[in-house]
């Protein structure tokens, strides 16, 4: 039951010829913080609106807690939504906004007041009852939108890019707060975002979407270290792609010939077939260790020249040209070494376990 708390089966939503959501199936567990991640126009918001009931599916079914909600109107669904622009009613004050959805619950005055105070304290906005939307900051509006949805004690809380309108510092704070809030209330969160770092830092699991289809569903660690295709690998973080071809395989390992670097035996996590020329390897910048002198750590050690570097404060990215390679490799290092200036020789070392073999698309 709890494994398939939300069950999405073969859902499609087409707008004319555009397939916003194209035959998508997956489930979400009870109490999970689940993110839908993807570039704009990938269908993640449409999928969320299908869950909320604002869009009707062309085909497929949606079950929430065992109930078929596919054709249920939004007002009857056990879901509540935090809108991207928060949609705080401008004509009524904060208290009335929060009480808005409680009309049908027929609570006594005291009970209602208790519930309001409860959610207000949950979002840390006690004392704001009389304010109006235009007297609140963006962050405060977002909290009110949360409170207004949470007071309904929904089975699922849907969040449509709720942090998108906030500035970076506030966004970082709210990420932690949202995560803590979710743990405290234990409600299933479905969170839509285009910000990969946001989804990775907050979620139990992430579904990466592109062109109406799910590319990968996994926990953030796997998403980063074991991407299943080029799109996911490219969309999450920064990476180096190198063309490659496979040789023979012994089941677990496979021989891979990486252009201009060499031929190695690495793990074949995605069961790429033997003798395939259409493959690519992905190596994260932080998996490439730079040093001024040759070192014996690492499975592959190469010599290169630093062509360029960008300093980001906590990290520095180096663009290193390896003899004969088409593009420079990006390597990032936490320490800014005075000797690693442009034009200097350096040595790169890479471990086999950090090389991901992917199929070309």
């Amino acid at each position: 039951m709890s494994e398939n708390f939300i069950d999405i089966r073969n859902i499609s939503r087409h707008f004319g010829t555009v397939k916003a959501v194209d035959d998508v199936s997956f489930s979400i567990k009870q109490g999970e913080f689940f993110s839908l991640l993807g570039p704009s126009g990938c269908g993640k918001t449409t999928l969320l609106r299908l869950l909320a009931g604002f869009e009707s599916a062309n085909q497929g079914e949606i079950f929430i807690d065992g109930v078929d909600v596919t054709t249920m109107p939004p007002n009857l669904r056990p879901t509540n939504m935090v809108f991207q622009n928060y949609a705080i009613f401008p004509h009524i004050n904060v208290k009335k906004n929060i009480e808005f959805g409680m009309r049908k619950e027929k609570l006594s005055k005291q009970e209602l007041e208790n519930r309001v105070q409860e959610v207000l304290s949950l979002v840390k906005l006690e004392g704001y009852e009389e304010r109006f939307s235009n007297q609140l900051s963006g962050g405060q509006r977002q909290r009110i939108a949360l409170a207004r949805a949470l007071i309904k004690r929904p089975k699922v809380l849907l969040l449509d890019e709720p942090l998108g309108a906030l500035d970076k510092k506030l966004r970082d704070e709210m990420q932690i707060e949202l995560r803590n809030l979710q743990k405290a209330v234990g409600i299933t969160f479905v969170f839509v975002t285009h910000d990969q770092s946001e989804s990775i830092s907050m979620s139990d699991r992430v579904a990466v979407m592109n062109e109406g289809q799910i590319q990968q569903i996994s926990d953030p660690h796997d998403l980063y270290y074991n991407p299943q295709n080029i799109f996911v690998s490219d969309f999450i973080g920064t990476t180096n792609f190198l063309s490659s071809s496979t040789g023979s395989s012994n089941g677990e390992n496979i021989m891979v010939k990486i252009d201009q670097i060499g031929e190695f035996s690495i793990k074949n996590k995605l069961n790429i077939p033997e003798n395939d020329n259409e493959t690519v390897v992905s190596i994260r910048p932080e998996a490439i260790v730079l040093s001024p002198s040759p070192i014996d750590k690492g499975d592959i050690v190469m010599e290169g020249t630093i062509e360029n570097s960008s300093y980001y404060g906590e990290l520095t990215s180096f663009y290193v040209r390896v003899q004969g390679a088409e593009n420079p490799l990006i390597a990032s290092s936490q320490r800014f070494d005075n000797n690693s200036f442009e034009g200097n020789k350096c040595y790169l070392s890479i471990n086999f376990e950090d090389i991901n073999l992917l199929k070309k698309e």
Partner: protein
Amino acid sequence: MKLNENRTLYIYVLIYFGFLYIPVMFLPIFSFNQGIHMAFPLQGFSTEHYEDMWNSPKLFDALWNSIYVGVVSSLMATMLAFFAAKAFTKYKFRGQALSYGAILTPFLIPEIILAIALLVIWVSVGLPLGLTPIIIGHVLFCTPFCMIILIARMEGFDNNLEEASRDLGEGVFMTFWRVSFPILLPGLIAAFLLGFIISFDEFLLAMFLQGSDQTLPIYMWGQLRFARRLPHVLALGAVIIVATSLVVMLAYWLRNVGQPQEKQDLTFKI
């Protein structure tokens, strides 16, 4: 960033505003003039024409007719215009431009054509002329106006607010009642008031379609022919001008209530 002062243009604008306003000012001025001759020099201050106006029962009959026609037609026009404005601001649909043009047409074609069209159909169907055909004509004539006003107001309406209400458990009707209606109320009142003014002042449709019941403009038109009766029409005109201006200013204020500064606008886009 704006241009600096331009004195010549400023003086011209002042003269133009004089051209715009001074003619209308003569009605109140002459309405307080003694005697029945509307010419300078003024004969002296008197309120006799206002007393005369007060003692014209036919005038009050016409006034009530006009108020009745104005309220009914503007109420209907505002409702039709609201639904239409909702369609134009919320959906993109096939035949959008054509429908928009169709609804605007009664206001754009020469009014006399609308008037005789209604007259011909009314007479050929064999229905008695009177306030009913006038109301139909006025609804046709006011709906485009109300719609333009409401579209301007509703373009900024956040559809997420309706979705939020649906999401929080309200059905379609309660969503309208608790969210859309209170938010759009100032705009709806403004549309109603301006529609009322248009209907209240409308002459041509009323002239062609009148039965035995006169509206106020028809009454005034009838009085214009008699020099003796003219001054009390001036008094009535002065009252109408003042009252209309107040209502219009109220409507203008309502149109922008609760609108952010940068969205405030009084212009019409046709």
